[in-house]
């Protein structure tokens, strides 16, 4: 079953990369457990980030991204407070 542009769930519940079939997670409970995780400054998201976040807040922010460990396709992107865990999760049960 397709989950989104980049991930599929196999018959055995394994979550894989839709582009290269690399296993991203053994089960839907931790669907992206094997994904590469990287954090960078928000400005690395490109020129769309217009001003230094420090102009507006004292809280450090981070560009957080997940990648397929094999083909390095980008699986997820968010800019969020660095001291905050990611709240973006999914779990499909059927």
């Amino acid at each position, binding site marked *: 079953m397709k989950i989104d542009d980049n991930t599929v769930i196999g018959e055995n519940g394994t979550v894989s990369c839709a582009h290269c079939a690399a296993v991203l997670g053994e089960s839907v409970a931790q669907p992206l457990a094997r994904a590469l995780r990287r954090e960078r400054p928000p400005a690395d998201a490109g020129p769309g980030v217009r001003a230094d976040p420090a102009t507006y807040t004292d809280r450090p922010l981070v560009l957080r991204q997940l990648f397929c460990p094999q083909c390095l*396709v980008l699986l997820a992107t968010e800019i969020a407070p660095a001291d905050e865990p990611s709240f973006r999760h999914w779990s499909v049960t059927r």
Partner: protein
Amino acid sequence: MPIIPVAGSERFATSPKTTAELRESVTGVRLHDIPPAAVADLDPLTYEVVRHRLTAITEEMGDALKRMSGSVVVTDCNDFGTAIFDEGGDSVQVGLVNTQLAASLDMAVKWTLENRAGNPGIGPGDMFFCNDPWVGGGLHQNDASIFAPLFYDGELFAWTGAACHQVDLGGVSPGSWSVAGRDVFWESTPVPPVKMVEAGTLRSDIEDLYLRRSRVPKLIALDLRAKIGANHVAQDRLRRLIDKYGPTAVKAVMRHMMTDAESRLRGKLRALPDGTWSSVAHQDGARAGDRAIYKIVCQMTKRADRLTFDFTGTDPQVEGFANCTFAGLRGGIMPIVLTMLCGDIQWAPGGLLRCLDIISEPGTINNCTFPAGIGKGSVASAWATQNAVSECVAEMLATDPEQAKSLMSVGCGTWDLALLAGVDQRGGGFVTMICDSMAGGLGARVDQDGVDTGGLNCIPMGRVADVEINEFSFPILYLWRREEADSGGPGRFRGGLGGSSCFIPHDSPIGGVHLVVSATGKALPQAPGLSGGYPAGTQYDVLTRGTSTRYSFAGGRIPATLDELGGDRQVMPNHAETDMGPDDVYYTHWQGGGGYGDPLLRAPDLVAADVRAGRVSAGAASGVYGVVLAGHGTVDEDATSQHRTQLRRERAGVA
């Protein structure tokens, strides 16, 4: 000073009951009803004719409102909502304009039935006014609503309602956007439902009580009559419809519209896998000087044919004006349900809501308790709620090949408020918000880019006023209004571009204008991408003092960039209030939509076309999309392939 609870205020924040529940509890007024068999016996032709007529009536209400209003916010920008309800306030049909407003009007109708039927009573020709977001009827105090019972043969047959944004209803700051506000007492005082029109007569005492608070009472009085007129139009049309088809048939259609919407939404949900999708929406700053970041957490669970939106984990309500009430939370959910799940389903929230459960703790930033500040609630926590809900619903839809075509990444992350006040070129006082950010960028989809400056999820029929209308109406001249490169979130499909406007005070007898600025999304983007797509750009507002623009104009030139303005450039904080002098120029840059998919998978030709059209900068084409352009702007295929391979490793931190 902390927000101190006010005893007794709880009665204005009840959970809305269904029509069936209200039938058991309301006394003092006879509610029309029909037997279930009347719905079952409804012939399809009558259903279709009357159903379409009811839809058309909500549009006619909007037309009437626009024709009578004198506010550009209404006449040109469509910041209003209209709806028809059954006898118990369940929404039968909402209009295509501000669906946040329409999604909260039912709450006010239901509260009125419960609390006003005995005293002062609800009778033929009555109309009620409300701008209390704890009750409903709007998401902040500027959303002032008028709703009216329709009696037929002595029974309360239905309700009609209209709400629109009022440009000023008092409070510390012009436009009622009290950027320094700590609680609701800094803001326009919320008015729970009062009988504004009694047996067909506008009550002058209540009208005076209402208008006295505004800096522009004549304009507000005109809008009040516009909403009364919209209700008159609706009631006239409904009465004719009932005369023609009979009350039983019309009510059966109303019932069937809601049950049909409900059953069709349930069918869509059943076709999707069960699961849970979580998201978060951030806001930077809840008042002037506040440098904190607040989060709204949404966990959406889909089981069989129901959706549960659980906001547990959302930050507590804050000192400031960015909280929203439960009406705002609900108003954050319904626009996404309507636009993403119900594009082919009747917009009958009374039925759709039967498929939804909401879990939220009172006292949180998107379900605040009195007297928390809510002046910006509609475009602050309600909008942020909408962003979080949008992400969850879109991810759920992505799992189904057919329904995925309806998803959209988060569109324009919030409203970039530029509010002007002062003396206009005709010598009269004025207050208005410049509604240019109505042209937000829409989110990318699974098979196409987001629409550039395409609008807002919550106001499908919203629009921007012509530059000339704004210049004619208010003492300003535009230097430009345009789409902004790189404002759309990069992705395999790019988010729609946001835009910017730049203007200078002009022809005011007092020289300049007063400026109120309020916009989050400056520290971090508010329109996230999906499936690896990047978020849209951040919001960015700049006030440049003492520019040479007048001299440029005198020389026949219109500055086209901030660098050409000269002067002292000040990057504006999230929330601020100041005066603009005659040589000061304000630049407001609102948000685009989030991207979809990995930008390194975007077709290089599309990137090249975006660069040629000014939608993407050459820097972003190379640094984010990995596309190398040859001398004439065409794609260098080999160099692009190599660059993308390198960029793919660099961004993942792989040596």
